[in-house]
């Protein structure tokens, strides 16, 4: 089933929570409401002619120009061998998305990664801790406005070059 048909199906079922087909070049996606994405995900998985049994990828993208952080779900169905891309836009100042961990267990770590690097809070997640970065890291590095702290636990992250120092005679 192609993206347009799936969008139709979703729109019939969930109404205004489902946006139109968003066509970026090379990739079509459907944007949905971040707070009802879990229900939509459940529907996508359990509807027999959709049967998206695998969450293949879950990525976050910071879009400061639009004030949004976009979370992209790439779904795949091993039953029908078709793929579908779902997107949600979270507000950049208070990014909150419902978790889909209960629908696809694979989302557990993928959501933790997005939380870790972009600071998106997945509501209802069972274990939302930092995954890759240390637990006491400050900030979310994949945000476009992230500035590296000058030091981490007393270790300087800036390297001084001797070339910049005044020459000694």
């Amino acid at each position, binding site marked *: 089933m192609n993206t347009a048909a799936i969008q139709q199906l979703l729109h019939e079922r969930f109404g205004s929570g489902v946006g139109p087909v968003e066509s*970026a*070049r*090379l*990739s079509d996606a459907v944007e949905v409401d971040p707070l009802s994405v879990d229900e939509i995900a459940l529907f996508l998985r359990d509807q027999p002619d959709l049967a998206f*049994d*695998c*969450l*293949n*990828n*879950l*990525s*976050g*993208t*910071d879009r400061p120009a639009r004030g949004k952080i976009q979370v*992209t779900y*790439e779904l795949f169905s*091993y039953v029908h*061998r078709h*793929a579908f*891309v779902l997107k949600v836009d979270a507000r950049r100042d208070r990014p909150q998305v419902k978790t889909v961990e209960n629908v*696809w*267990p*694979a989302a*557990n*770590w*993928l959501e933790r990664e997005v939380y870790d*690097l972009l600071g998106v809070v997945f509501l209802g997640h069972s274990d939302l801790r*930092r*995954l*890759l*970065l*240390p637990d006491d890291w400050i900030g979310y*590095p*994949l945000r476009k406005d992230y500035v590296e702290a000058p030091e981490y636990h007393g270790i300087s992250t800036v390297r001084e070059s001797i070339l910049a120092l005044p020459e000694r005679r």
Partner: protein
Amino acid sequence: MSLELEFDDGREVFATEEMTLNMGPQHPSTHGVLRFIIRADGEVMRSAKADVGYLHRSIEKIAEKVGWHGFMPYTDRVDYVAAMTTNQAWAIAAEALGGVTVPRRGEYCRVIAAELGRICSHLLAAGAMGMDIGAITPFTHAVRERELINDLLEELCGARLTFNYMRIGGVAWDLPPGFDAKVLRFLNHFEPYVDELDDLLSNNKIYIERLANVAVVSRERAIAYCLVGPNLRASGVRYDIRKHLPYSVYPEFDFEVPIGTGRHGSVGDCWDRYIVRLDEMRQSARILRQALEGLPEGPVIAKVPRNYKPAAGEVHVHVETPRGDQSWYVVADGTEYPYRVHIRTGSFAAMSIIEELSRGLMVADLVALIASFDIVAPEVDR
């Protein structure tokens, strides 16, 4: 183990004190810098929580700073055991966004390099698996064969581990003269070796006892946790990106997709994951033979501007690496830098299922489990 009485649904049972073990970050069997926090009751684990991130090198952030061409060497470091396929994934993503077509000879060079890399990676996986189970000899034999491939790849691109061989639009260099004959000679030598590995390791009674029926992943769990590649196929799902979502020139080759059959236990146990890799080496050898035979003439790289600026768009790329479907999500915004790159690797998916699988296994089984998933720690952390 102090005996304490636990009142569990009204029944008195003897229970033993729990022990928390810390496996890693420096441990020979975690295949990289990786840590498990094991809660164990004697030798039986209640859970093994993975703690990753020790090898996080912020490769995705680097991509946003170094530009399209400049990111290629970094892709080697995503999965340094099989850098060719990661190279290829990035090249495919960039080419798709920029609308570049790779010359046919370039595609063939890529396939040859990628399949050699696949054999290389699977050899290491099979050997290390034997080593983790306690058989030390298969590892040295596997590494001996791997050395031959390393020599070949060194001749091809000058590096033995981090190749940086591919470019956007093709490959950096054509095959050196006489390379195809050497690869053929290697294949003649290598194909019987896989049978030898069967004799040496696969059918060893102790080896089978250690792996069969251990950490069985059912078809449903494998899909739900998004296991990919050999780990998925061992659970009985016949799905290979090269065959079912083809890229490059793979549709032109005739090869099979081996799946786990549960020959010594249940479908999806550790032994199945091991044997699928062995079978895949044979198929890779088949592809290599066909690629060498049908190698077309012509250029190996398309004309690509030095200042590469693909138009805005986003693309999802799937490439079959030795550790399975590597899923790349690349966003371009029309500048000379990628806007966002996200890589979901095979090891990442496999790591996340370990906690669930570890319940009730023994400490020694965890080692077998990690090895059977062929986890490469830097690929998890990127």
